[in-house]
């Protein structure tokens, strides 16, 4: 048990809280309005996706992996598919790689516009939310046009992509991108001129260049602290090797910097989409891959809109993977949040958390509980864990014995 400290006041934020969109828990130690310490607790939305992947075939896994995240679904499925293709030593057709890149960038556009709206909402600038989300509809319609769905595109398959892109669709995409580019220029103008945004976001959630490196921040969070790191540029996958673009960095180190990085990245994304449509070669979109993937293991990296996404796949030569490990970008960034909020005001908490564009359900992988003070790990069987929990509740004055007996009788009667 924690000893109560007289000058600090601890308040729980979450797991259910109006300021948070997903279940996650924060225990904030306050001194007046100032945050003295922050404890983050994840794990309220653990879905057992990695284990479920092991029980399904590679083809079924594609659709499961896509549902890791609702917003960066293409990121996760591409990352997984890249790892499987590396194990199977498949050469993916060029056209398929370009289509993957195209969808990936359209997804980044929709994710960044979504973030811009959410950030506006968190600082009480709901006008920005309404306009950013209205413009986001354009890119959502483009995604629906190419893939058939607004989210969970189902575009990737092992060895290529499932749907081709026609000339008419390409023209529609270009038209949509032109409108969005005008709108984004306007948002850049707003972000650099509108007093409310600048005053509210400057100096909030500061993380220095050194700390960003030390805490392994990824994506726009790191790039806003001047860390020149982008998987698309440093370790090109799909068609990024043949495309020229700039890695946007900023030296503001705060939420304002992260806003600038994201809106400027939108402009880069439009350039990448244009180049993709210009350079896309003709040819097949799919290489047939046998259902059984040979023995091997591979790690794959992907620059999701939120940062670097890492997938590890191990194959045992059957139709099902032996192990799938997913590291979502939020897991890398969540440590930085703790640092950003130290000695800041409680009112900054929603926007600072929102500024890393968190996706807690994607991050929840598995939970390991450790005894504080005792680093020795022990594995408890299901039975032992159950007995322990019953005993623990008994100590709190809650007795489940009668309830359990009723349940047992009920099951026996069946």
């Amino acid at each position, binding site marked *: 048990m924690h000893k109560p400290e007289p000058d600090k006041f601890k308040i729980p934020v979450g797991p259910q809280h109006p300021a948070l969109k997903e279940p996650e828990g924060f225990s904030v130690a306050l001194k007046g309005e100032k945050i003295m310490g922050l404890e983050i607790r994840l794990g309220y939305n653990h879905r057992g996706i990695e284990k479920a992947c092991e029980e399904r075939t590679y083809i079924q896994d594609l*659709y499961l992996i896509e549902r890791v995240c609702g917003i960066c679904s293409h990121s996760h499925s591409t990352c997984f598919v890249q790892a499987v293709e590396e194990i199977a030593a498949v050469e993916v057709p060029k056209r398929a790689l370009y289509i993957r890149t195209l969808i990936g960038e359209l997804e980044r556009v929709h994710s960044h516009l979504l973030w811009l709206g959410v950030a506006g909402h968190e600082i009480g600038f709901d006008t920005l939310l309404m306009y950013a989300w209205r413009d986001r509809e354009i890119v959502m319609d483009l995604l629906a046009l190419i893939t*058939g*769905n607004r989210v969970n595109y*189902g575009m990737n398959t092992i060895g290529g992509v499932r749907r081709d892109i026609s000339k008419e669709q390409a023209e529609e995409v270009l038209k949509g991108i032109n409108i969005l580019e005008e709108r984004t220029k306007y948002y850049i103008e707003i972000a650099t001129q*509108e007093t*409310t945004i600048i005053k509210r976001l400057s100096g909030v959630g500061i993380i220095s260049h050194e700390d960003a490196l030390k805490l392994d921040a990824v994506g726009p969070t790191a790039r806003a602290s001047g860390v020149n790191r982008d998987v698309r540029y440093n370790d090109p996958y799909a068609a990024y090797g043949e495309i020229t673009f700039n890695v946007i960095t900023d030296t503001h180190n705060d939420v304002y910097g992260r806003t600038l990085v994201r809106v400027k990245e939108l402009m880069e994304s439009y350039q990448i989409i244009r180049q993709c449509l210009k350079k896309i070669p003709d040819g097949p979109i799919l290489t047939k891959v046998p259902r059984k993937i040979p023995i091997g293991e591979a790690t794959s990296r992907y620059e999701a809109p939120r940062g670097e996404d890492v997938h590890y796949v191990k194959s045992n030569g059957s139709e099902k993977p032996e192990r799938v490990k997913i590291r979502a970008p939020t897991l890398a960034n969540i440590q930085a949040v703790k640092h950003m909020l130290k000695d800041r005001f409680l009112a900054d908490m929603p926007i600072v958390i929102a500024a890393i564009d968190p996706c807690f359900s994607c991050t929840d992988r598995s939970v390991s509980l450790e005894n504080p003070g005792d680093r020795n790990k022990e594995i408890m069987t299901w039975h032992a864990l159950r007995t322990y929990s019953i005993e623990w509740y008994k100590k709190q004055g809650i007795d489940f014995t009668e309830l359990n007996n009723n349940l047992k009788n009920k099951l026996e009667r069946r």
Partner: protein
Amino acid sequence: MRPGKMIKEVLRSIIKKPATNLYPAEELAMPHNFRGKLIFHPEKCVGCKLCMKDCPTGAITINKVGEKQFQAVIDLGKCIYCAQCVDSCLKKALETTKNVELAQLDANKLKVTFSGESKTGIENKTP
């Protein structure tokens, strides 16, 4: 720095037409690649059951009802509309439609049987 940078945009919206669609009144056009409710053509099916094997949620079941005759039971509540079965089918016996209005008050109605006897692939409503 300039306060009220968005005020022009806000004022312009007063005279603009709404960005939303009047959904039930005006029917939305589904995109070309849209994956809606599945349709099964029994006369094309050879019973290889690849669709059953590849379905991520186990929503489709192929039953043999007679000599070279198969029926499909599709649980629309389980289906995630990924259309992997359409890709997997070697004989093109499965097809997606643009039907999205599938909500039902009774869960049993979500199970749709495509009868083996029907030559047209029209669903047989009786479960």
